[in-house]
């Protein structure tokens, strides 16, 4: 049963990913990207990383997609289709991608993955993730956690600085 669900999710994800990179209407392409992100969250839920699946849904599906939709509505008309791609560029990119897929799949399927540690499986609930994030001992992640918080603060300040650089009189001159 789980296997069938996994196959359905995978096929849907691949189809929607192809549609997201080939559709000429950018708003539709964003919605197809949203479906791919939800499919990846579904795989996270299936392998029992519930916290990660929830983060994927809230940050990606709830935050980033809304950001994309807002910025597309700010910068251009929604009905304007994207320019079509010339055939040689399509051919070049397609053959490059297929070559990459074949090469990587050959490497993956010819490698023998063995489970190195045969000990007990770790509980992956939110409690364990939180303890690991704030643990400063062995296998703790307190340093990257703090670095990420600094990075998010810097990104917030940076976004405000970038958005404020345009003075109104400059804008009028350009118009």
């Amino acid at each position, binding site marked *: 049963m789980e296997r069938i669900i996994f196959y359905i999710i995978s096929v849907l994800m*691949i189809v929607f990913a192809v549609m997201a990179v080939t559709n000429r209407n950018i708003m539709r392409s964003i919605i197809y990207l949203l479906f791919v992100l939800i499919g990846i969250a579904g795989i996270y839920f299936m392998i029992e990383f519930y916290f990660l699946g929830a983060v994927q849904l809230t940050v990606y599906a709830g935050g980033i997609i809304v950001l994309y939709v807002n910025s597309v509505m700010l910068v251009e008309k929604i009905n304007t289709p994207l320019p079509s791609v010339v055939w040689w560029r399509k051919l070049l990119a397609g053959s490059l991608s297929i070559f990459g897929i074949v090469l990587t799949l050959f490497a993956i399927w010819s490698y023998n993955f063995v489970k190195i540690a045969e000990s007990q499986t*770790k509980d992956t609930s939110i409690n364990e993730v939180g303890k690991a994030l704030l643990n400063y001992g062995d296998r703790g992640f307190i340093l990257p956690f703090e670095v990420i918080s600094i990075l998010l603060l810097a990104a917030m300040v940076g976004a405000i600085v970038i958005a404020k650089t345009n003075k109104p009189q400059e804008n009028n001159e350009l118009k």
Partner: protein
Amino acid sequence: MISGVSIYEILTVSTIIFFIGVYGFVTRKNLIAMLMSIELILNSAALNFVIINKYLFPEQLGGAIFSIFIIAVAAAETALALAIIINLYRLIMSLKTDDTETMKF
């Protein structure tokens, strides 16, 4: 661990999504559409981290936590890149990569 699904099949899916993202990055000429292809690439990389953690090192949590960090970095990157793109649009009134040839105004 999904019962009946081996690590090879999940890695196959993530590989295919990664190269679809590469295809979009090469063919698209709109800045926002290129950024969307980068999201696909980042997502498949994060999926790889989680899958390898779950199937090969189930007694640790490193891959899952690094995946959370990847999501945080991707959110910061997207917010900054979209701010830059909107600011650029105010300056040159276009989103095509061919029109953004000057680096400093």
